[in-house]
């Protein structure tokens, strides 16, 4: 995959279809990502978690969104054509002939579910690659698939057997040894890994004593992202890149080209911008431009 620059989006941090409604053609003309990663798609539709879903913390954001999505069938029939038309329009406006690949992120609760999702993506020419969101409990064991190297390797191996597309495994940071999990993904046949996903976090609702503590977020706990996690991401990306020979997509709190440069310097091939896009949808474009300018000096 040849990309126009090394900056993409983190899954679930940029809805290109909604952004097209808000910004019109300006979205395609100023599209900041060299590849576009969809939000997580599951087999069945999901409404998402009850509100409240957000908490602003020191230098960051805790979210408990709950992966709302239309489910695989309606993603393929409704969203995929629209996303493909957006990335095609972006390719035309960027004008250097390099297409903006569409990466579909999927999540299952078992190896069989992951394989079914990957197989459906395999049949679609619009999809350039598949990213596996393994930050979810196994429906049978209750253990997070991505936190357990043995289980993770099994899932990736099963998906690998059923898919010809490049496979990216989105690692969870909520594990004792992220490099061991990354190794398991590589051993299972992953073509790349991406990290970090959000760190499990919690906030209490404002209260007056002696009221008992109550979680603010409707989902109880959530995932922390933003500048607050940047140094943790750097440590995890460095540990993983040192161990693997496949490419690493680094992300976590990137707000500037300097932050992206740090991730690249410790071994990331690509960098993703996530939460910063919430503050400014064009932020990733500035990161890419800054990297390019620094490279020209």
């Amino acid at each position, binding site marked *: 995959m040849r990309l126009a620059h090394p900056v993409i989006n983190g899954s679930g941090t940029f809805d290109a279809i909604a952004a097209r409604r*808000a*910004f019109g053609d300006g979205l395609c003309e100023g599209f900041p990502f060299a590849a576009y990663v969809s939000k997580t798609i599951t087999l069945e539709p999901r409404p998402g978690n009850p509100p409240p879903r957000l908490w602003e913390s020191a230098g960051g954001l805790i979210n408990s969104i709950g992966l709302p999505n239309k489910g695989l069938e309606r993603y393929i029939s409704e969203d995929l054509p629209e996303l493909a038309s957006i990335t095609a329009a972006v390719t035309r406006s960027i004008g250097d002939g390099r297409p903006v690949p569409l990466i579909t992120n999927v999540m299952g609760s078992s190896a069989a579910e992951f394989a079914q999702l990957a197989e459906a993506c395999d049949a679609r020419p619009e999809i350039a690659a598949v990213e596996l969101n393994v930050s979810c409990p196994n429906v049978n064991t209750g253990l997070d698939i991505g936190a357990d190297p043995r289980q993770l390797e099994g899932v990736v191996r099963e998906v690998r057997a059923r898919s010809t597309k490049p496979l990216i495994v989105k690692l969870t940071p909520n594990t004792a040894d992220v490099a061991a999990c990354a190794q398991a993904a590589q051993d299972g046949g992953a073509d790349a890994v991406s990290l970090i996903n959000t760190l499990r976090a919690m906030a209490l609702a404002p209260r007056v004593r002696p009221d008992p503590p109550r979680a603010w977020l409707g989902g109880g706990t959530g995932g922390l992202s933003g500048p607050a996690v940047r140094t943790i991401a750097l440590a995890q990306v460095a540990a993983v890149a040192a161990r693997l020979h496949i490419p690493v997509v680094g992300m976590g709190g990137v707000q500037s080209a300097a932050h992206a440069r740090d991730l690249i310097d410790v071994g990331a091939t690509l960098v993703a911008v996530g*939460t910063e*896009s919430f503050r400014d*949808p*064009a932020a990733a474009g500035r990161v890419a431009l800054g990297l390019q300018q620094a490279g020209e000096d």
Partner: protein
Amino acid sequence: MNDSSSAPAPFGRRLLTVTGMRPLGEVYRVLSVADDGPDPEPGQFAMLAAAERWGGGEDERPYLPRAFSIARRRPGESQFLLEDVGPGTRRLCELEEGDGLWALGPLGVGFTAPTAGRRAILVGGGVGIAPLAILKDRLETEPTVLLGFRDRARCAGRDLLGDAAVASDDGSAGHHGPVTDLLLSELEHDQRAVVYACGPAAMLEAVRAICADRGVPAQLALEAGMACGFGACFGCAVPRSGGGYLRVCVDGPVIDADQLEHVGEHAGAPQ
């Protein structure tokens, strides 16, 4: 008014310059910025953040931009109504002429003009009166305006809309009680109306219930905690009548009341 011909927001936040900060009574402030962006529909909003010192306040916040209804638009200038309720709004209230303001917008779906023969009744509560000002500016026929405030200090907010009937929780001005009492008496003698409302969740829920009981169409401008304002974060979900959720930022902020089962108290916008 809401129609498909309105120009979309420019992609990316824009650095605007503050042209004025005017107190409106003891609590509210009117922030004016030079703005050559697209003309907003009444009810649309923008995500705002101070260009300098955004962060480092209470709990090391703010971090995210804050959503504000566009209160008024004049050629080359946008106005926003502010109340200091937390580290983000506090920082915005400190802005002075010449300061920089990041703005993304105009965003979201605005109000829809009343159909022929229906009278517009505008119902506002507290700082939520903001989008009713630009709506009143754009309506072809003078609407009935009903405003509710907590106390005397906040009642000064009425000056934003000019001629209005006022209710106050503490009885310090106008009717002693909720603004929905005024709405009830308006609808008592004329139900051929369309209600436009913005304010606290409890007020909106009362407006929704009153209008639903009487078959009066209502358009509610909602507030919810949101990180982005353009459909990316999925944080601003409100339950949709019949199941699932709506995103306040892209499905609203103005939502037909019959699309909502109820207006919940969860909103919890970052302040």
